[in-house]
């Protein structure tokens, strides 16, 4: 190895997956783990990969990543409350108007919210601008339910969007809800669904944007909101 090549510590290596040289948002949780635990993650991942080479049971790799995401994100976070609201359903769901809202970062092609005035921001740029995003007011995108997949875009610097790109219903289930409306399970699905980038100023979301959106839903006589935080 050349003397000019900088030696990378294990800590630097594990942190490189979180907005670093090896950014992979599926594994950004590694940056928050102690070295010992991150090493355990890799050791067990590779051992299980060895088993998969023999039996093809790749689900064990999925399970491994899932278990470590659960472990790494454990903890209440900073937004805790002693009490919470509860409004009982006032009429059957089959007579109710339901709206879908997700923090997935979807928008309709041609209606890009253009964060920070940037046209055609790429996913890579969104990742690089994460600090700006989490200090900014969220921008709500209106998405007609049933918008074809080829007309839906997604961009979010906080999670791996490959699943959401391949199939929006993994985090924005508008098609499923349309099916359920047709079956009579829901009285009416609001024709506009909504999405925003959840990696935003949480304080502004709580104090300003959130209350504005609730008011909008009340004006639209929405009975139920289905929320999918990502």
């Amino acid at each position, binding site marked *: 190895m050349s003397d000019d090549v900088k030696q990378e510590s294990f800590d630097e290596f594990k942190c490189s997956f979180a907005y670093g040289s090896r950014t992979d*948002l*599926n594994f950004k949780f590694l940056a928050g783990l102690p070295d010992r635990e991150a090493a355990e993650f890799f050791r067990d991942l590779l051992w299980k990969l060895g088993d998969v080479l023999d039996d093809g049971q*790749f*689900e064990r790799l*999925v*399970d491994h*990543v*899932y278990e470590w*995401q*659960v472990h*790494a*994100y*454990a*903890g*209440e*976070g900073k*937004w*805790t*409350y*002693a*009490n*919470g*609201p*509860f*409004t*009982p*359903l006032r009429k*059957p*769901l089959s007579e109710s108007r339901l709206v879908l809202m997700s923090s997935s970062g979807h928008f309709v092609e041609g209606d890009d919210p253009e964060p920070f005035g940037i046209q055609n921001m790429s996913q890579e740029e969104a990742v690089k601008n994460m600090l700006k995003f989490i200090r900014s007011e969220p921008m709500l995108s209106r998405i007609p339910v049933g918008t074809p997949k080829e007309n839906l875009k997604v961009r979010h610097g906080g*999670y*791996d*969007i*490959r*699943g*959401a790109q*391949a*199939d929006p*219903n*993994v*985090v924005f*289930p508008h098609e*499923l*809800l349309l*099916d*359920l409306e047709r079956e009579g*399970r*829901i009285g009416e699905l609001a024709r506009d669904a909504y999405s925003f980038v959840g990696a935003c100023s949480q304080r502004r979301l709580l104090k300003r944007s959130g209350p504005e959106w609730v008011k909008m839903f009340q004006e639209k006589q929405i009975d*139920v*909101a*289905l*929320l*999918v*935080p*990502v």
Partner: protein
Amino acid sequence: MTIGIRAFRPRLEGMTLPRALITPHLMGRTLGAPGDRDRQREAVVAALELIEEAEQPGTFVELPGAYRAGRDARG
């Protein structure tokens, strides 16, 4: 009504949400894997049932089963 992944359950509970369906799925794939329409529908139907059945704040229900990758809708 909120649908969230198991990894975030402690945070969602701390927020004292009225009702939440918790899915045993990966981050960024809350309702299931791409193309796994049956599983995604299972999650949404369970959420709708919870809307109707929950009677008090902080009602959290875990969706049984597991994430099933491989039914890819990638074109």
